[in-house]
């Protein structure tokens, strides 16, 4: 059973919505059936094969090539299999994914892994706003799984997150972990303003510069033993983590006292 390879012939003039690109579904489909899957080109109903050359079928190992920054919903809702995007991905990549692995070798546009429930989403470049976040109106954002980002993250990283882990090797923008309900966000660079704003439970662990909001209270400085294990696991999975972070103490801030203050911001201190 070989891999399915999709090659986008040319960047579409307007965004292409292609939630049909899901490795778990491709496992049951022939090459011709995959080419007939529906996509939306603006307001026009078209077939996947109108835009992509399709090679292979009946496999849940899928590679997608070409200028994909205008292709939306790549791997969204996928529940298994392996999808590799050989370049940049458009908005909503891996949104709502429940299982399997999605690897994006370039950058991911907004909403990467938004409301994901399981599986592993690895972005080798950077992610834009709302990665692992919640859509408007949703009570919960990311509810499970692992989101690994090798580059920087935009604003509202993991907003309203409920479970799972987000790890960002670079910096994160404003409002990281805002309104978090539970789960863990680890950032190895700086975070922008208002991290953990409105957070109920959960941990935001920052290794660069961080200023907790005024509704957080300093509690203590300590060496949480579980964190070292966590970090080693992330490094094992290929996230570039500097050696100096693997030991060290953290300043612990409890919050958010504007909400249910059962969460924390941990700021690495050497």
């Amino acid at each position: 059973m070989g891999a399915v390879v999709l090659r986008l012939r040319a960047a579409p003039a307007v965004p292409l919505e292609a939630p049909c690109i899901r490795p778990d579904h491709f496992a049951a489909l022939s090459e011709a059936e995959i080419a007939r899957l529906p996509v939306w080109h603006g307001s026009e109903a078209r077939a996947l094969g109108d835009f992509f050359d399709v090679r292979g079928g009946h496999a849940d190992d899928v590679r997608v090539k070409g200028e994909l920054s205008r292709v939306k919903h790549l791997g969204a809702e996928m529940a298994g299999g392996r999808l590799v995007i050989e370049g940049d991905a458009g908005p909503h990549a891996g949104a709502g994914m429940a299982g399997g692995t999605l690897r994006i070798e370039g950058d991911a546009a907004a909403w990467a892994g938004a409301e994901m429930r399981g599986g592993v989403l690895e972005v080798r470049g950077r992610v834009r706003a709302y990665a692992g976040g919640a859509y408007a109106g949703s009570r919960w954002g990311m509810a499970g799984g692992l989101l690994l980002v090798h580059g920087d993250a935009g604003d509202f990283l993991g907003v309203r997150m409920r479970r799972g882990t987000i790890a960002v090797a670079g910096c994160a923008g404003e409002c990281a972990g805002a309104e978090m309900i539970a789960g863990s966000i680890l950032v190895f660079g700086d975070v922008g303003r208002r991290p953990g704003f409105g957070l109920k439970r959960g941990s935001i662990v920052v290794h660069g510069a961080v200023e907790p909001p005024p509704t957080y209270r300093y509690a203590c400085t300590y060496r949480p033993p579980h964190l070292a294990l966590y970090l080693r696991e992330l490094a094992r999975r290929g996230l570039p983590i500097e050696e100096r972070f693997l030991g060290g103490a953290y300043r612990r801030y409890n919050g958010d006292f504007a909400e249910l203050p059962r969460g924390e911001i941990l700021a690495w201190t050497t």
Partner: protein
Amino acid sequence: MSGAFRLVGGRVYDPANGVDGEVRDVCVDGGRIVASVPDGAPVVAVRGMVVMPGGVDIHCHIAGPKVGLARRLEPERRRRDVERRRVIPGADGPSVLRSGTGGTVPSTFTTGRRYAGLGYTTAFEAAVPAMGARQAHQELNDTPVIDKGFYLLLGNDDFLLRLLGAGEAGAVPDYVARMLSAARAYAVKVVNPGGVAAWKRGRTVAGLDEPVAAGGVTPRRIVEAIAGAVDALGLPHPMHIHCNNLGVPGNVATTLATMRALEGRRGHFTHIQFHSYGRTADERPTSAARRIIEYVNAHPELSLDVGQVMFGAATAMTADAGVAQRLHELTGHRWVDVDVELESGCGIVPFEYRERNYVHALQWAIGLELFLLAADPWRVVLSTDHPNGGSFLSYPRLIRLLMDRAFRDEQLRRVNPAAIAGTALADGLAREYTLSEIAIVTRAAPARLLGLERKGHLGPGADADIAVYRPDADIEAMFAAPRYVFKEGMPVVEDGEPRAEPWGRTLHVALAHDGAIEARLARFRAERGTLAPDDYRIDADELRRGEGVAARST
């Protein structure tokens, strides 16, 4: 409009004309039902199928500012329920079916399409303040297929309350006529009479005789004055009233007192389920459905729609802003509260009815009790108060609950047993609605109660709004996907799928009024409001396809 054709071989349910499942042809010409068409006219074979007039929804919330706010409040429900633009080939060229979103509060296009998809061809928005009339009309203009209109909120109108407080009840009919005409509304809606105005000042009103405004104005006086005005003006639909104390345990006393206060005048009591509660010693709600329906059975001047609760997603959306506040406090869910200056209130809360919840199960059971204990289906209309008790999309399931006892019993076993224990359902109500009774409660009765002479029946002269269903042991499936729906003779649905989306009419009352009130109203609004009354007067050309319905001669 359409050419002549003949529907052949269907079992026709047209209770307004005494037709109960007889096999007969239905002839259509020029968008109306006719006695006959020439022998060579095209034929649509519907042998063995059930033919009914198009459905008429007497009470729903589908247009106006509060509906727009609810759409904005619930993006998560619409995001997962998207209808894409479609192009349908046709004899006169392709028709474009616009895109839209669904959820409990669908967009305008989805609303028209989905009503038609159930065989409903007329629906009335039940609560619009005069200030919201323009937006309501714009949205109704944009709602395809169905005929529609709205009811104007007047039960907490500051000017009207002041007329009553000043002892000028005699001026109320002229004021009501003026407001209905200016807004191009169809009927008068009273919501929690006086109670919303009081709530806006931080008070709650518990009884019919509590003062709610200066000059000794009470809910009773408001109800009497408006019911009297509606009668005096000869409006086609009686006063449409949502009583005080909606949802409050023990509110049956207020509901019955309001019915008695009408003293023989006509009144349509809406979503009566929400007003049929008794109370235990520890303030828990109980069913008082039997007391309500026995009173209504014995009073032919009264009608009601049930406001059935259906399990699943709903949106509480009401001019009774205090109710929305309570629901928000109960659920912790986000809400919107809007003050409509000098006229009304407005509150919106996303909601979910659950089978195991005592109160929700009780509400579900009370609705069914009301249906099953009703003596006269001509005065008991099917509604969910869409989207308050559930979406109109749940009507097929509700019809099955009424027609299929085995299905009903199976549902009964799943809901909170403590809630069922005190209801007539626990005694095993055996009644199953017939197709003819369903035709009454979903089309013939609401059309008659609305005074719509061309709706709800299939006699010559009626609008050729026709629904054709394929018989199915699964009643829900049968009513969820009609074989055909015709609107004014045009096929708009086939096998549950849209085929065309013509524009329906907007129905409003055409009234004469003497205008004496105009100068006073202008002065009042200039002193107290931010808009002059003429700012929200609706001109005839603002309605895409308006049609005035004359008052009855009085």
